[in-house]
């Protein structure tokens, strides 16, 4: 190779790069114009991306999917309303049979009609052990599901399960598409076809999901014709892109949402949630297993300070899995922050302060480890605040960070800063958290809580459909939790969303711990009506 040819190559590379750079720079101004946006489209920023869009693998299990419908759906107040069923189910007197009558005018987005066969297929496939569905346990009560003709589906349960109707918000998959492929890895897991208000037009993993309105939606075509969910994992980038006008709305942590407070063109929505943070107090640890210690910690902790300082006001104190503003909350079970009271309880139980201020009883030092998920700032802050409150009462808590792999084997004896919460029915959280037979079953009943009164009340609560009896049962559970708290519940956390102020009447649903795609003010984007202002461009 001569010097001449090297020069030639270099020149060619340079020319190529310049051409590319020039091509890349054409038309640079056009994004700026997009900030106003045509009024029939919306772009929102989300932090988490679903792994799959197949209902058979768990997508849309809590209802409110944009692509699919369930037999029933939740309204803004989390009350059940009919969706693919024409009315709420008929429940047999023994609570074991649920009968649904289906709509007749519904088609999937590929034009095929929706029938009872699709419902049966969806539930049977989920219950099949070969299907890799991690939420299968939620349908544990189902014994069998059968179609009667084209428009009736009958579920038969193994045991009476009062909140079962709330499980039937589960998204329904089309049998004629999904049954023809591998349920775990087939194309349907990423290219779904459903009956919902939106049709998925593209899913570029790691970047965005795009939807267009389903013009033949049975409940009326949505006004927002195009809807895009941009996947932006980093909180700061999401806030920046929102500010740049690239996004119309986004979920933000409290500190970043605060930056938009004075923004005239945007509004902040705080969604009430069932999302709690709690400390497990394992029965199998000599200190946390002592009811006196549990009760003392329960009142030694300053929940309001956590809400004010850690959550910047976006949340409320929690005394159990049920939020204080839920209709299921047992009034009067709130606990006041009472350090003196806590010290008195410990004194009376024989926990006497040692030389270093930490209490000791029968040679056992009042100390235990508290694990939190590493990298989760919110949990870390909660854990540190809890440890500092406990220290004032003479209990020494050593906080430690770890991944679930590290934490899980220790859950039987070590305390964990846990989170969870699913709205809908009080059974969903309480049964899994408190039932003694579920102790150590996966992540259920992490604290190995064991209380016969609570066990009985939990069974009563799910076996009867009588509202008054159910209320009494869950009141009992909450009062028992005040007497013998197996967990120290700390806060319920609001989820914050900042959205352009160009749509009217936005609302939020009560949200679960999970940030699903359906969370946020766009839970009902199909019902959004654009306001007339700002309807320029395009």
């Amino acid at each position, binding site marked *: 190779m001569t010097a001449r040819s090297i020069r030639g190559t270099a020149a060619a590379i340079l020319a190529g790069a310049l051409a590319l750079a020039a091509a890349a720079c054409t038309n640079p101004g056009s994004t700026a114009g997009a900030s106003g946006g045509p009024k029939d489209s919306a772009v929102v920023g989300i932090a988490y991306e679903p792994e799959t869009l197949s209902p058979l693998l768990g997508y849309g299990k809590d209802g409110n999917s944009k692509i699919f419908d369930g037999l029933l759906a939740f309204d803004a107040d989390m009350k059940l309303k009919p969706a693919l069923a024409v009315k709420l189910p008929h429940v047999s007197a023994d609570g074991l049979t649920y009968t649904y009558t289906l709509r007749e005018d519904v088609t999937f987005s590929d034009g095929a009609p929706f029938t009872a066969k699709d419902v049966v297929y969806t539930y049977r496939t989920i219950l099949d052990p070969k299907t890799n569905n991690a939420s299968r346990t939620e349908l544990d009560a189902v014994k069998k599901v059968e179609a009667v003709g084209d428009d009736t589906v009958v579920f038969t349960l193994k045991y009476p399960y009062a909140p079962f109707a709330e499980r039937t918000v589960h998204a329904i998959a089309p049998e004629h598409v999904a049954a023809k492929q591998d349920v775990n890895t087939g194309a349907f897991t990423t290219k779904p076809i459903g009956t919902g208000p939106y049709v998925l037009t593209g899913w570029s993993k790691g970047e965005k999901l795009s939807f267009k309105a389903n013009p033949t939606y049975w409940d009326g075509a949505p006004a927002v014709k195009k809807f895009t969910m*941009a996947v932006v994992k980093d909180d700061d980038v999401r806030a920046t892109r929102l500010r740049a006008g690239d996004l119309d709305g986004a979920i933000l942590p409290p500190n970043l949402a605060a930056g938009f407070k004075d923004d005239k063109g945007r509004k902040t929505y705080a969604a009430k949630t069932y999302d709690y943070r709690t400390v497990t107090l394992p029965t199998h640890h000599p200190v946390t297993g002592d009811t006196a210690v549990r009760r003392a910690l329960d009142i030694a902790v300053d929940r309001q300070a956590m809400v004010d300082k850690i959550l910047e006001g976006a949340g409320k104190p929690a005394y159990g899995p049920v939020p204080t503003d839920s209709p299921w909350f047992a009034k009067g079970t709130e606990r006041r922050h009472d350090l003196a009271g806590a010290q008195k309880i410990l004194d009376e139980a024989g926990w006497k302060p040692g030389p270093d201020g930490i209490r000791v009883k029968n040679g056992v030092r009042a100390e235990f480890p508290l694990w939190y998920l590493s990298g989760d700032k919110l949990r870390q802050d909660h854990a540190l605040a809890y440890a500092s409150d406990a220290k004032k009462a003479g209990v020494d808590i050593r906080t430690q960070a770890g991944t679930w792999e590290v934490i899980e084997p220790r859950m039987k004896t070590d305390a964990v800063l846990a989170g969870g919460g699913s709205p809908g029915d009080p059974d969903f959280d309480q049964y899994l958290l408190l039932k003694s037979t579920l102790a150590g079953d996966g992540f259920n009943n992490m604290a190995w809580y064991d209380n016969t009164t609570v066990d009985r009340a939990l069974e009563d609560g799910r076996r009867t459909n009588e509202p008054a009896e159910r209320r009494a049962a869950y009141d009992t559970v909450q009062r028992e939790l005040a007497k013998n708290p197996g967990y120290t519940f700390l806060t319920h956390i609001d989820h914050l969303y900042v959205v352009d102020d160009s749509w009217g009447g936005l609302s939020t649903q009560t949200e679960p711990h999970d940030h699903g795609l359906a969370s946020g003010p766009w839970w009902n984007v199909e019902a959004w009506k654009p306001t007339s202002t700002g309807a320029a461009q395009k």
Partner: protein
Amino acid sequence: MKRRLPWGAMARMTGRRALAAVPVLLAVTFAVFAVAAASPFDPVKAYAGTAGLTASQENLDQLRANLGADQPLLTRWWEWLTSAVTGDLGDSSVMRRPVAEVITERLGWSVLLAVTAFLIAIVLGTLLGVLAGRRRGGLLDRAVSSAAYTLEAAPAFWLGLLAIWFFALELGVLPAGGLTDTASDTVTAGQVARHLVLPAFVLGISQLPWFFLYVRQGVGDALDEDPVRGARARGLRERTVLTGHALRSGMLPMLTLVGSRVPELITGALLVETVFSWPGIAAATVQAATSVDFPLLAALTVLATAAVLLGNLVSDLLYGLADPRVGFDG
């Protein structure tokens, strides 16, 4: 005089390297399986995600069996290897799709980003390096050199945030992320080109200091060498001296650099893709690793290893071409 390219020697070297790559790739895939199996991460928990936090043990055990996560390490590796040889790369548990699909869908975008960034780094780095090397200690040299040292220390992630803030937020001239306009469904060349500018420049700029510093040093040294001084003494024009003598020997070290920067480029792309929501393969790699998604992880590692080996081969070939004394012996 025209000299023919030594095709035969080049082909032989390529062949030898390809043969040597086989045991390397085998060892790497086995290492991936071994490390992943020894890691504290649990593939079942990763697969279940938040649903796993309320799943019963029975449900989780069933998942473990379905995913084959209860198989011993050797069995899993052998099964993966034998089916990979026949072209079946298996199914990715984290993406819920066949591995081949996941890779074909994303690889192109990563390659586009990395190649563009690489060109930017090489071209700008060389250009600035030559200019700075010509007048070492000059104004341009001092300015660019100190900038290069600063850039060397600056994380690509931070550069990305800075670029978004300045070009997307303050100036509003370039999109802040994604492959196409967020509200758009169709992937057009114009949109991709515009969205490519920031990530490619950030990635390119983060690689630039190495090329710049190498070329600057090489050119500067070459200008002090005897042949150059001789050329100058013979009264050749400065431009001829620079391009004909100094640049040629000054560029040599950079050719090796091209190969050795490939791994760095891959890790840099990872961060840049995350910041700019670029739908490339990098994000999938992280997910595959933390989810112990064996099939995807193994396929991606083979790809990355192959890219590094290929990078080294290319830089050795170029070096051999540029300096016949080195030859093609590998």
